[in-house]
């Protein structure tokens, strides 16, 4: 893969939010390290899926990539241009080429603007289309692309169903002719039967317009479905990155394994056969992440050496990038999960009693402030 094929490259990106306290003078008493040193590359025309639980920093990463949140450190290179140091005027011009789709179409569309006005706003800002007729033509094309009828132009967001609203949000991004679209939870607010419509639409648009996607979602099944490469985040850092199929067939990081095993599959036969890795406790606070490997407090495979004091870096293992000291030995089953931290249950046949039913053990620090 040559460098020309890489549309977006993120190097050691950091976003730290200060925690302030004080009556008259705000004193910074610490930082929430929402994103703490992420490297990733997205090849042109491909989809990079970012998964992780709430609070892992995946949305902040997406926003920092688009410079909607100022990064604390690191670089974002978009098509050869470094964005973090770009003057505001030039950054604004770049924004046409990178757009965003939001989770909740009801709150990301202005209820008092009709669809035409919503779609025109971006065109005007970027000076696309000389007059009203030209803009109308562009908007019409965008509506066709997302499968909305022309009469939608004069309607307001509340007149549409959830799926149609999300299509308006997609049209607003597509009308500017972007190269990169960051989609933050594009389908999670939609009903199951509608999700599939939007997922298919995103796939079609990618094919016809050659779009590059960064899809941020917590639903692993959706991400697997539309991504070429998937990155798994935990407490502000990538713990594993692999081609979509490989990640699902051969997850290497203990967190990825736990995550995969926790996703319910709509098939009773699969559900009854699955080995479930139950993680203990909640996500630790990103303001005070554990030392060493950030996952070691919940990791069923945590070892007495290295895990607690040495932060693992992403390293290549047969095509995946994994941040775990023991990934190979876990994959070869040389290391077995210890039952102190969590339990592995295997449902017996017929979906009756799991053979061992451990209550998730309270090993995690009790003052985790997740939410």
């Amino acid at each position, binding site marked *: 893969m040559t460098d020309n094929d890489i549309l977006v490259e993120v190097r050691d990106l950091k976003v730290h939010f200060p925690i302030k306290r004080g009556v008259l003078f705000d004193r910074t008493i610490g930082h929430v390290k929402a994103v703490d040193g992420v490297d990733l590359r997205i090849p042109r025309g491909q989809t990079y899926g970012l998964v992780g*639980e*709430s609070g892992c920093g995946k949305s902040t990463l997406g926003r920092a990539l688009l410079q909607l949140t100022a990064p604390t450190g690191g670089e974002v290179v978009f098509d050869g241009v470094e964005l973090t140091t770009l003057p505001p005027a030039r950054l604004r011009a770049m924004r046409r080429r990178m757009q965003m789709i939001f989770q909740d179409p009801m709150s990301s569309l202005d209820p008092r603007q009709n669809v035409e006005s919503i779609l025109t706003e971006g065109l005007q800002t970027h000076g696309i289309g000389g007059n009203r007729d030209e803009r109308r033509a562009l908007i019409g094309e965008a509506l066709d692309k997302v499968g909305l009828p022309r009469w939608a132009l004069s309607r307001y967001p509340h007149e549409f*169903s959830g*799926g*149609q609203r999300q299509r308006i949000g997609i049209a607003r991004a597509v009308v500017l002719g972007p190269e990169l679209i960051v989609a933050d939870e594009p389908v999670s607010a939609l*009903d*199951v*039967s*509608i*999700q*599939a*419509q939007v*997922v*298919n639409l995103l*796939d079609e648009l990618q094919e016809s317009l050659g779009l590059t996607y960064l899809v941020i979602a*917590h*639903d*692993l*099944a*959706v991400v*697997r*479905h*539309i*991504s*070429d490469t998937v990155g798994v985040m935990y407490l502000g850092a990538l713990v594993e990155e692999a081609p979509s*199929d490989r990640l*699902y067939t051969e997850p290497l990081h203990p967190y990825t394994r*736990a*995550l995969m095993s*926790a*996703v*319910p*599959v*709509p*098939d*009773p*036969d*699969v*559900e*009854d056969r699955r080995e*479930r890795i*139950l*993680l203990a406790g*909640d*996500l630790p606070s990103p303001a005070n992440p554990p030392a060493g490997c950030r996952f070691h407090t919940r990791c069923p495979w945590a070892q007495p050496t290295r895990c607690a004091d040495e932060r693992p870096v992403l390293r290549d293992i047969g095509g995946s990038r994994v941040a775990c000291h023991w990934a190979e030995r876990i994959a070869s089953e040389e290391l077995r999960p210890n039952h102190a931290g969590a339990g592995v*249950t295997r449902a017996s046949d017929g*979906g*009756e*009693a*799991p053979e061992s*039913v451990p*209550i*998730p053990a*309270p090993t*995690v620090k*009790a003052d*985790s*402030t*997740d*939410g």
Partner: protein
Amino acid sequence: MALLDVNDLSVTFARRGQRTVHAVDGVSFSVDAGEVVGLVGESGCGKSVTSMAIMGLLPRRPGTRIGGTAVFDGTDLLGLDDRARRDIRGRDVAMIFQDPLSSLNPVIPIGLQVTEVLARHRGMTGDTARKEAVGLLDRVGIPDPNRRLKEYPHQLSGGMRQRALIAMAVACRPRLLIADEPTTALDVTIQAQILELLKELVQESGTALVMITHDLGVVAGMCDSINVLYAGRVVETARRRPLFRTPRHPYTAGLLGSVPRLDSGRGEPLNPIPGSVRDVLSWPEGCAFAPRCSRRLDACLDETPPLVRTHDGRSYRCVDPVPLPGVVPAQAGQPGTPSPERNEEETRD
């Protein structure tokens, strides 16, 4: 006789100047002790209204009508007066809600909210109640329960709050538990913990569990039998395996076909159900799913499809169901066609 027998439950909301909404329309199902029954459907299908009606939680307004029966252990829950209902609710029948933050009182410590239930139904006070509450929190996997008792809901994480809510629900060892989307607001790893906890409760105490969810994956792992709802009616009822292996109603089949699965590959196109839940006929005008259905016939728009009961205990509401594999599809409109699943009694609601 099942522990809970819901028969022909219907809920309508009428407002002056607007069309009456049939939120729930002739829903029947039953739950035995130790059984997990699922109510599955998308938003607006009436699954939550069903549970609220059973629990007597729907606001009393002039326009709200509740019909049918919900017989719990010989008593019709719908016919009870407020006093009798309050005695049963929380003691014999308990409920777990979707969003733990809005169903816990934000200005009262967790401990008091748990002991309140114990005081009301089990007459426990003071130290006995506190000890019992510690036991309950410990039982649902909340670490350091003594300290947690003094904390307020906002100090707990989402998973903890849901555990606290479950602790309150099981405080009086209810015989029936209704869980309305208990894990929808939670992350998958926390969801797995909570589902495991609910499974344990059912196995250990023989509690009957009604699981209300939109997530077919959760249903596949938990429920013994499943009712699929669409536009306020049960469109298909089956045991877990048959439902997923051979869905008969086109809506069930459509739902299963449209869900991306973790074990399917990249780029396999999904088969969405066209249209949206808004495109709904009212049932008296035909099958409510007909506008979105790929197997629609003219007959679908003429009258409400009757509930067909097959000999293996399944039932569905469709005149032209998805054929079973290896069976020549019966022609719709000719009920006499000799095919194995057609020679059963057809009952009509």
